[in-house]
């Protein structure tokens, strides 16, 4: 009770209290949003599955057994087995690790990169802005998947290169958002005041511009996650992403492609995993936007 009062205090005594209070209010709002709640649960489930994969999965993801090839789903093999006799359910469980790794790395690479480029561009304006945004627009004007395909093809197949290729196609959207925010922030009085105090450009950008961009950034990154998962799966499907025997969902669908008419479960099952996780990110992203950006409520 006392904690709640401290969190909801109208005049927080410290920066820490204000931040904690805001986080508490946002999470309260999120809880009230059914779709966001479902999304959060799905993502929590994904993280738990990835962390506890060895305990959840009944078998190892690479354990071959050719005596039980292409067994249909049963109580023993919930999702059946694939052409090498591997338990598909176990592979889907372990695949959560690969997917989580991909989205986390893409976000960690592209969000800060886009944030920095956009903030610098919007803050300085002039030629810096024109050149940086020119480059950004060229990337933005290309279809993402095709660009990622071309990069992945040039860099060579492999999960690291797929992550790099996806990150290269993802940052421009973040740069655009950060620039738009920076443009408005740079003309505010508190920035002018900080500058008068003798703060350097670096300090203003990192301490004042960047923190204010984060909430719109979080929304955008969450909404983009579904797209990132789909692109990664697409690269895997085409053989440009994760390589066998790594249990990546897109690559698993690809390996079941030749059996789709008779052994439908091989290609179908990993697809459900992709859909559930992507939907989870979509729901959460939508919910976050409703909560953090009140202007767009219910759209």
């Amino acid at each position, binding site marked *: 009770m006392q904690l709640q009062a401290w969190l909801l205090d109208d005049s927080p005594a410290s920066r820490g209290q204000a931040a904690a209070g805001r986080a508490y209010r946002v999470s309260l709002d999120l809880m009230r949003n059914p779709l966001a709640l479902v999304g959060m649960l799905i993502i929590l489930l994904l993280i738990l599955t990835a962390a506890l994969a060895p305990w959840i999965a009944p078998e190892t993801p690479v354990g071959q057994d050719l005596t039980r090839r292409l067994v249909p789903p049963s109580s023993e093999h919930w999702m059946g087995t694939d052409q090498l006799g591997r338990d598909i359910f176990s592979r889907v469980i372990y695949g959560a690790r690969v997917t989580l790794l991909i989205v986390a790395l893409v976000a960690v690479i592209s969000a800060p990169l886009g944030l920095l480029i956009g903030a610098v561009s919007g803050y300085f304006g002039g030629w810096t802005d024109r050149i940086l945004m*020119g*480059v950004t*627009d*060229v*990337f933005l*004007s*290309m*279809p*993402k*998947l*095709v*660009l990622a*395909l*071309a*990069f992945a*093809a*040039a*860099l*060579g197949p492999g999960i690291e290169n797929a992550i790099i290729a996806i990150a290269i196609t993802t940052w421009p959207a973040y740069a655009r958002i950060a620039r738009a925010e920076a443009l408005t922030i740079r003309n505010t009085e508190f920035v002018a005041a900080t500058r008068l105090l003798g703060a350097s450009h670096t300090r203003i950008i990192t301490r004042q511009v960047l923190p204010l961009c984060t909430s719109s950034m979080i929304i955008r990154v969450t909404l983009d996650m*579904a*797209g990132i998962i*789909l692109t990664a*799966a*697409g690269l895997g*499907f*085409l*053989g*440009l992403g994760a390589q066998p025997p790594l249990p990546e969902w*897109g690559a698993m*669908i690809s390996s079941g*492609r030749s059996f*789709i*008419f008779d052994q*439908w479960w091989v*290609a*179908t099952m990993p*697809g459900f995993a*992709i*859909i559930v996780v*992507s*939907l989870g990110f*979509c*729901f959460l992203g*939508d919910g976050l936007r409703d909560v953090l950006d009140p202007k767009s409520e*219910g*759209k």
Partner: protein
Amino acid sequence: MASKTFSGSKRAAGKAYTGMFAKDVKRIAGLDTLGTMAGFIVVVSLTFLGLLALTFFIGRVIPIDPVLSIVGDRATTEQYEAVRIAMGLDRPLVVQFASYVGDVLRFDLGMSVSTNRPVAQDLARVFPATLEMATIGITIGVVLGIPAGVLAAANQGTWVDQVIRVFALLGYSVPAFWLGLVGLAVFYAGLGWVSGPGRVDIFYDGITPVVTGMLTVDSVLAADWTVFRSAVSHIILPATILGVFSLAYIARMTRSFMLDQLHQEYVTTARVKGAPEWRVIWVHAFGAIRVPLITVIGLSYAALLEGSVMIETVFSWPGIGNYLTTALFNADMNAVLGATLVIGAVFILINKISDVLYRILDPRSR
């Protein structure tokens, strides 16, 4: 003058949707838009140059040595150097880029290693197939997506709205290649409603004279109804699946635009005046969102080109997407970059055109 045309087209909204275009095409040719057109050409050329720089860069960062793939690893240093100079790779990067731009402007995209023909010729051959599928796809998306979005907005918060919302989000979460495979398993192998992969049944292949390169159109022109039926039964499934993705996006955007309008005061005024609800929704509110919808439709048409890469691969559809992925497997870099370039160019062009249309049709944005 502008506002007069605008309200005039609003009045005609329920009856003739095309009326708006006839009037505004005249306006595109008008003097007031000459400036817009010049700016348009400059922006498009600059973006194209950026696109070329990008494909050039991708071509240069390949870890595979292009010289080595020709001379082989047993070549002597002299042979290696000779080929390197013959390929022009010893020149400064700027010079190489300039000659690359020159080549592209002359539609010279190099030779394809796998088909042993100029990439530009290959692309001209496969592009109509993609255009055909994307056009049917966008038609499905527009015809179903707009009413779905309007319906969701008009019933905001009800179960109709929730169902359409979740369905639209599904469009962002389902992998296209997976839906293609499941569609094949269900509608082709299971129910037998449609034909399988490919463009036409094998024994009809290549007998229709090529006019547009789009088989459904060419077979009608040749009055060959057997081929037409076969072609339709092949295209309907991949095109519908493509359409589902644009449907999701169009429905979502339509819903969002309509919600904006339905909360405006003029809508309340119309209701107070006693206008029937269908009229308030379809004439008053919908009339105001037609212009932004054009941009949305343009964007999703361009996005379909991208979506077709995956769908074509699954359905062995002989379009540009299938060409691109086949080239990927064969490490045929000229073909990969050529296809990337063409898809990118079409993408940019459609985006910019819908941008300009928006500016011309919406007086407020001028």
